[in-house]
C-alpha cells in the first residue's frame, strides 16, 4: 500500500478538511477580536469578573493566537495544504497558478516560524544623551547589539491649526473682546492685530497704527512657574495649560515680555493699559516624532541618522522604529528593535501568492482559450 492510499493521507488531502480548517481558524480569530488580547489582569477582572478571568485564562482566550488549539489548527492547515499540493503536484502551465498560490501560504507560514524561532524583538527606552549597547527582548533576554546607539535629541512637532491665533484688542474703543464659547469664537470688534503663534514665522507684527510691535517668543503646552529657578517651564507635553510668551515693543522700542494663557485670559492683563491679549488656542495634532541618533562602534562614530515613524533605521541586521515617546517631558524616546530573518521569506510568499492568483483567475482562462481548438 502506497502512502497515498492510507486513510490519513486521504483525510489530509480533502478539500472538505480545508474548508473546515479555514472556518475554524476564522472563528477562533473572530473570538480574539472581541476579547481583548494580552492585556493586564485588572482589565479582564473589571470586564468579566474574577471567575470569568480565570475561565478565560484556562481556555487560553487572553492570548488566543498563541493558544495550543490555534497553533494546532495552523499545523493541521499546513499539513492539509502540503498533502493537497503533493497530491496534485503538476508542472503543467495550467496548474502553475494553483500550485503557486497554495505553496505561497506555506511559505508565509514558514516565514512566520523563522521569525518566531530566530527573530528578536525588543524595546529601548533611551533618554536624551544616553547610550545603549543592548536591549531587553520580548522573551526577557538581554540582547547585545554589538554597537552603541546614542540618542542626541528627541524632537516632537505639532501641527498648528490656522485658527490658532493671538488676538490683540484695543481697550480704547470700548471694545468687548468676548472670545469665549465652545466653538464659534466670535470675532468681537476691537481686534486690531492677529498673530499666528508659529514661532519664528512671523517675526514682528505691527499693532495697527499704534506704533507698537508684537512678537511671539515661546510656546509651552503645560505652563508652570518653577519657583526655585524663577523660570517658566512646561510640566508636560500635554496641553494642560497652553501659554505663549510675547514680546511687546512700544514706540521707542522699549520691550516688555510676558505670558498669555489660553485657559486663563484674565491673567497678566495689566501689562499695557491700551491692549488686551487673547490667546485663542486650538487643539494641536502631532506632526512628527524624530529621534536623532548616532551609531558608534569601537568608539568610532559610524553614522548619524533621524528615526521617524515610517522611516526606521537599519543597521547590522537590526531595525529601529520610532514607537513611543515621553509625553510628559519629552525626555526619552521609545524605540522598537527588531531583527526578523523571516521577513524576506514572508515577502517572497506574498509575491508567489499574488502571481498564483493572477495566473488562476486571469492567465488560465486565456490559455484555455488557446487550447480549445485542439480538443
Amino acid at each position, binding site marked *: 500500500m502506497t502512502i497515498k492510499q492510507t486513510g490519513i493521507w486521504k483525510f489530509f488531502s480533502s*478539500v472538505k478538511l480545508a*474548508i473546515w480548517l479555514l*472556518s475554524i481558524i*476564522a472563528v477562533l480569530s473572530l473570538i480574539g477580536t472581541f476579547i481583548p488580547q494580552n492585556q493586564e489582569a485588572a482589565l479582564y477582572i473589571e470586564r468579566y469578573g474574577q471567575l470569568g478571568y480565570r475561565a478565560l485564562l484556562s481556555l487560553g482566550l487572553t492570548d488566543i493566537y498563541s493558544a495550543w488549539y490555534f497553533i494546532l489548527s495552523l499545523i493541521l492547515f499546513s499539513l492539509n495544504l502540503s498533502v493537497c499540493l503533493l497530491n496534485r503536484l503538476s508542472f503543467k502551465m495550467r496548474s502553475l497558478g494553483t500550485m503557486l498560490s497554495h505553496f505561497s501560504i506555506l511559505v508565509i507560514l514558514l516565514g512566520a516560524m523563522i521569525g518566531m524561532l530566530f527573530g528578536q524583538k525588543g524595546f529601548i527606552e533611551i533618554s536624551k544623551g544616553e547610550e545603549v549597547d543592548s536591549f531587553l527582548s520580548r522573551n526577557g533576554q538581554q540582547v547585545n547589539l554589538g554597537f552603541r546607539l546614542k540618542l542626541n535629541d528627541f524632537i516632537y512637532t505639532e501641527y498648528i491649526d490656522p485658527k490658532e491665533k493671538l488676538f490683540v484688542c484695543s481697550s480704547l474703543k470700548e471694545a468687548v473682546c468676548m472670545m469665549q464659547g465652545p466653538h464659534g469664537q466670535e470675532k468681537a470688534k476691537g481686534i486690531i492685530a492677529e498673530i499666528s503663534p508659529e514661532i519664528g514665522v512671523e517675526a514682528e507684527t505691527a499693532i495697527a497704527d499704534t506704533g507698537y510691535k508684537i512678537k511671539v517668543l515661546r510656546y509651552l503646552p503645560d505652563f508652570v512657574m518653577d519657583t526655585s529657578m524663577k523660570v517658566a517651564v512646561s510640566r508636560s507635553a500635554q496641553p494642560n495649560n497652553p501659554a505663549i510668551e510675547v514680546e511687546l515693543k512700544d514706540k521707542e522700542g522699549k520691550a516688555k515680555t510676558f505670558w498669555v494663557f489660553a485657559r486663563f485670559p484674565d491673567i497678566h492683563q495689566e501689562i499695557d493699559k491700551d491692549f488686551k491679549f487673547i490667546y485663542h488656542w486650538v487643539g494641536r495634532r502631532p506632526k512628527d516624532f524624530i529621534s536623532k541618533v548616532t551609531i558608534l562602534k569601537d568608539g568610532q562614530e559610524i553614522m548619524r541618522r533621524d528615526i521617524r515613524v*515610517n522611516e526606521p533605521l537599519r543597521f547590522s541586521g537590526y531595525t529601529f522604529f520610532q514607537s513611543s515617546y515621553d509625553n510628559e517631558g519629552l525626555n526619552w524616546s521609545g524605540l522598537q528593535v527588531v531583527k526578523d530573518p523571516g521577513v524576506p521569506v514572508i*515577502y517572497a510568499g506574498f509575491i508567489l501568492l499574488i502571481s498564483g492568483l493572477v495566473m488562476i483567475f486571469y492567465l488560465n482562462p486565456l490559455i484555455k482559450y488557446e487550447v480549445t481548438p485542439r480538443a
Partner: protein
Amino acid sequence: MPSLYFNLSFGVYFLAMVFYMGNLVFADKILSSIARFCISCAIISLSIYIGMRWQIAGRPPLSNMFESLVIFSWAIAAVLIFIDLKYKIKSIAVLVALMGLLSLGYASLLDKTIVPLLPALKSNWLTIHVLTCFIGYAALTVSFVSSVILLFKQKEDKNLDTVTYKMITFGFLFLALGIISGAVWANSAWGTYWSWDPKETWSLITWFIYAIYLHIRMRKGWKGRKAAWVSVIGFLAMLFTYFGVNYLLSGLHSYGSS
C-alpha cells in the same frame, strides 16, 4: 469650490440610479445610455473632487471615514460601468448604483474638514493600501448584489452566478493585495507585519470566507444558491471589517472612525 463637485457627483450618481431603474422597468436602450452617461459623469466629478481635496490637503485624501467613503463610491461607480458594459444585467446596475449612492450619502453626513495626517499615516503605502482595499470592496459589493438578486429569484440564473464568481475572484485578489500592502506598510512603520489587530484579523476572516467560496465553487461544484449564501456572508464580514471594527473594536486603525 470642491463641495460643488461633491454635490454634483451626488446628483449625477442619483440620476444614474434613476435611469438604470427606468431601464429596468421600460427596457429602453436610450435610458440605459443616459444612465451610463450619468455614471461616467459621476466618476469624472468624483475624480475632480478627490483631486482638489488632494491638492488642498497636500496629501492623498484617504485618511478617515469620510474620505474612504468617497473613494468607496468612486470605486463602486468604476466597477459598475465595467460590469454594466460587460454583462448588461439591469437589476445589478440599479442596486450597485444604490450602494454607491448610500456610501456617498453616508459620507455627506460626516465632517468634511481636512485635518493634517498623523505621523503613522505619512507613507506612500497609504495610497496603495487604501486603493487596493477599496477596489476590492467595490467588486465584493457587486458580488453581494448579484448574490442577493440570485437568492430572490425563483429560477436559477447562470449569469448572476457568473457575475458573483467573477467579481469575487477580482475582489479576492485585491483584498489579498490590500492585506499584503498593509502588512508591508506595518512592517516598515512598526517592525511587525502582523499583530492580530482587529482590522487585520477581520480582513483575514473576510478573505478566508471568500477562499471558502472559491473552493466550494471550483472544487466541490457548489453553484447558484448555496454559493450565493457564502458570498453574502463574506460581504457581511467585509462590512464588519470596514465599519464594525472602526466603531465597535479598538486597534491600530482607530483613526478610521473619525
